[in-house]
């Protein structure tokens, strides 16, 4: 049995004010896949992510993580399996120092102090933040915060990594650094993002959400080549697939304008 499978079946969510955020969502993500969930604002991306680790309860439908149904009883296990990186690192980094923050998850899981020391050092080095370990989170730059936020999740050795807008607000260099880091992971990865170039580079599969429904689900290149679909869902081709605005040359052989 693999822990790495995410199976969502007929998921429906209605907020208490009556807004239908998710109408009927179904998909299966298997071991080691890297999946981008894209869609316009309000398409239901964040709502969907919040279901994956039980922050929201479905109005209808089921979610299985590694063949375990998501329910109150299985939540602690599932939360260990799914590492969730939030959009705003300030929400995720709440401890006094970077070290404490990265150690927070392992401490809750009951690791021994020696293990924690080793684990924290390991993941901080992995994300290139070893030199920040004794700093308080509010002294970090945006890119540093993001990398530390990822470390806080990696320290619990999750099987599945879920990230909400990972490249949001990063400068080009920090964005590159982060993408390189994410590409090297062997976890099952699920991203939501408006940074379609990042999605194109990191994800081999893309799920397009539109008004609470799955409008398309397939290989990234195929989806990004479907102009009609993208226009319907208020999306655009990634910049790297568009023509050059200066010389008009086109990466794919035909002009897109």
């Amino acid at each position, binding site marked *: 049995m693999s822990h790495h499978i995410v199976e969502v079946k007929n998921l429906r969510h209605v907020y208490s004010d009556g807004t239908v955020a998710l109408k009927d969502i179904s998909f299966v993500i298997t071991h080691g896949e890297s999946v981008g969930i894209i869609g316009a604002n309000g398409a239901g991306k964040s709502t969907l992510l919040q279901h994956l680790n039980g922050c929201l309860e479905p109005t209808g439908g089921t979610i299985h993580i590694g063949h375990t149904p998501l329910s109150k009883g299985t939540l602690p296990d599932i939360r260990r399996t799914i590492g*969730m990186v*939030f959009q705003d690192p300030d*929400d995720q980094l*709440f401890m006094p120092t970077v070290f404490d923050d990265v150690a927070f998850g392992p401490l809750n899981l009951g690791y021994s102090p020696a293990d924690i020391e080793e684990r924290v050092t390991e993941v901080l080095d992995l994300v290139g933040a070893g030199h920040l370990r004794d700093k308080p989170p509010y002294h970090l730059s945006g890119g540093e915060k993001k990398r530390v936020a990822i470390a806080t999740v990696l320290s619990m050795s999750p099987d599945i990594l879920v990230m909400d807008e990972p490249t949001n607000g990063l400068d080009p260099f920090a964005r590159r650094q982060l993408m390189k880091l994410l590409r090297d992971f062997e976890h099952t990865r699920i991203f939501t993002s408006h940074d379609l170039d990042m999605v194109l580079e990191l994800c081999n599969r893309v799920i397009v959400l539109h008004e609470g429904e799955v409008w398309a689900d397939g290989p990234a290149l195929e989806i990004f080549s479907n102009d009609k679909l993208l226009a319907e869902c208020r999306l655009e081709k990634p910049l790297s697939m568009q023509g050059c605005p200066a010389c008009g040359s086109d990466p794919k052989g035909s002009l897109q304008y």
Partner: protein
Amino acid sequence: MASINRAVLDLKSLDLLANRSSAIHRLDARAKVIVTLIFILCVVSYSRYELTALFPFFVFPIIMISLSGLPPLFILKKIILLCPFVIAVGIFNPVFDRETFVHLGFIEISGGWISFISILTRSILTVGAAFILLGVTGFTAVCQALESLGMPPVFAVQLLFLYRYIFVLTEESARTSRARELRSFGKKGQGISSFGSMVGHLLLRTWQRAERIHMAMLARGFTGEFHACRQSHFGTPELRFVFAWSALFIFLRLQNVPQLLGSLITRLIL
């Protein structure tokens, strides 16, 4: 709003001071907390008209600052910032309490003035000691020391969160207020009513953030218990530090040293 921003920056720099390394910085936080508490207790326990006996207590901040290498001017500025509040508390003493207390030649000083200056001196001493404690220990370590000395963990966690998010909150309010300023073109804007909704928004946003933080905590296996992983060691240097200072404070509290010195000198002269 600029002043709030600056105050927060100052708070951060006070925190950075705690990262320095000196003999005092290296001491266990509990030792420093205990000594500071005893110091404050001794200083505030004097009667309202006591003034001379307070002065020897300045030896504590002076020695702590010089041993730890904290910038004295920075600490002094922090203390001066609080003086208006202290003056507001004590300013009516000279008005209500006009009974002559001391004769200096032909100058008569009323009890009100003495108690006013006494309040001022005591505030400088206690506030200064608290700032020095923060500067040589850091807020987090102070909280953890208080917790290990018996403060309920709930309070410690509350304080830590307060300290962590005060930066985020002030930045958020500074941004909101700047946005208002930029659109009110140097006038009053819509006056107090716009501030009302601003504070309301800030509260709601804080609420939402609290929810997200709670989610982030749950996502990492939070079950209600707050673990912290910090080794601390209360050894001989800490014991010596605590005993030496508390002995001095208690001695100073029981004996009026300036008076003793004075009578010694007069006896020598006569």
